[in-house]
């Protein structure tokens, strides 16, 4: 599992690759730290290469959303696969994130 942060103008893009399970969550939480202090940015969580998300992964997404709201940033979850989409619906997280 890798997480890469890219900057593109006013956007910060976190590109997730692999399985965001409990084991990978510790490193991923460390990797997304630059997103937590972003002021007035559009934060994209790019999930095209993300195969799986666990509760720990949802907590990381949630943490990014909370900090973004506090710092005037906006979070968009992009290109989730059908399994992750299912997780978002099952947990009610669908109403928490803008999904593209």
């Amino acid at each position, binding site marked *: 599992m890798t997480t890469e942060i890219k900057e593109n103008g006013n956007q910060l893009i976190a590109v997730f690759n692999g399985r965001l399970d409990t084991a990978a969550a510790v490193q991923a939480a460390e990797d997304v730290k630059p997103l937590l202090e972003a002021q007035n940015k559009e934060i994209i969580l790019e999930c095209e290469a993300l195969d799986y998300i*666990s*509760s720990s992964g*949802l*907590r990381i997404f*949630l943490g990014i959303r909370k900090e973004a709201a506090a710092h005037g940033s906006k979070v968009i979850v992009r290109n*989730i696969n*059908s399994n992750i*989409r*299912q*997780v*978002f*619906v*099952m*947990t*009610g*997280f*669908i*109403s*928490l994130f*803008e*999904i*593209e």
Partner: protein
Amino acid sequence: MDLHCELLLEEYDAQLPVIERLEKVVKATLKDALDRNGIQVTAVKTRIKTRDSLAGKLALKGSKYHTLSDITDILGARVITFYTDDVDRLAAMAEKLFDIDWENSVDKRRLHDTDSFGYNSLHYICRLPKTVIDDPDLNAIRFELQLRTTLQHAWASINHDIGYKTGVEIPRDYLRRINRLAGILEMADDEFSRIRSEITDYRRRVQQLVQNGQLSEVQLDGDTFRSYLRARPFEALNRRIAALNQAEIQEVPLDNYLGVFIALGCKTLGDIDQLKKKCEEDAYTLARHQLGNTDLDIIASSIGIQNICIVWILTQGGGKIGLTRLFNALNGENEQNSLLADMTYEQALGLAFMR
């Protein structure tokens, strides 16, 4: 300018640093008291009369003042409120905060005859008491505190602007029109206050009806829906769902479901409650079916209300299109919503309520 006035100006120059300190303390004291009393205002402003402005005043009526301390508006503070009732609340607050020089204070709102309208503002001449700050220099200086509403402030500012800019005596007809506007704004101020009081009463009545369970008597709107949500009507269902996986419930706002319920034809809170009662058990079944085979141990507090809406749409024959509309309402319109709808529909197909 005569010698007496020049001496007063010298006294002003010498006092200026103390007045500047006083300005900071007065502003901070007012802001702190407003916060503590929970009074929202448009602005808290202070200003120190400039040397030129003071010189102008002295040139006109300098002989009236023996010392600088006779001039009570060298430091002026102004608090501008939203509502006329708040001027009286602020007056009570100021009376507790400051020592009021009653002889020189004036409530200009009360000066008008029954058939005249014009400048409306409450002027208090104050001193900082030792309870606020124990500093003899600051405690000695009087300052003027003006309390007025936003509309009173607008009228006073425009009236001042017109009066000064023309530089000639304003004909009676114009003065009458300006004062007529003061009357209209006084009515508007009273109406704003009445509207605020009536909305507060309405919210209390709604809250009471919600508490008493008389939901069918409450029309559905933003205010009433928030009152309904405050009673946490979906919490029991959320807890049942959370218990499936011993999940943590993440609180999220549910206000965006107002539009969903309106689109589903709900007109009163009673309609929502009926819908909830009809669908609650099936909403739980749907959650159990979805979450039961996972180890997901975090859910949003929207899960109960979301599943209730899904069940209602499906049992009413709304199908995939109805679900897409639901996700559009919750998530904004985008292509993913029809995929979400397809997936949710497929998951629900095997459940009893779909028969």
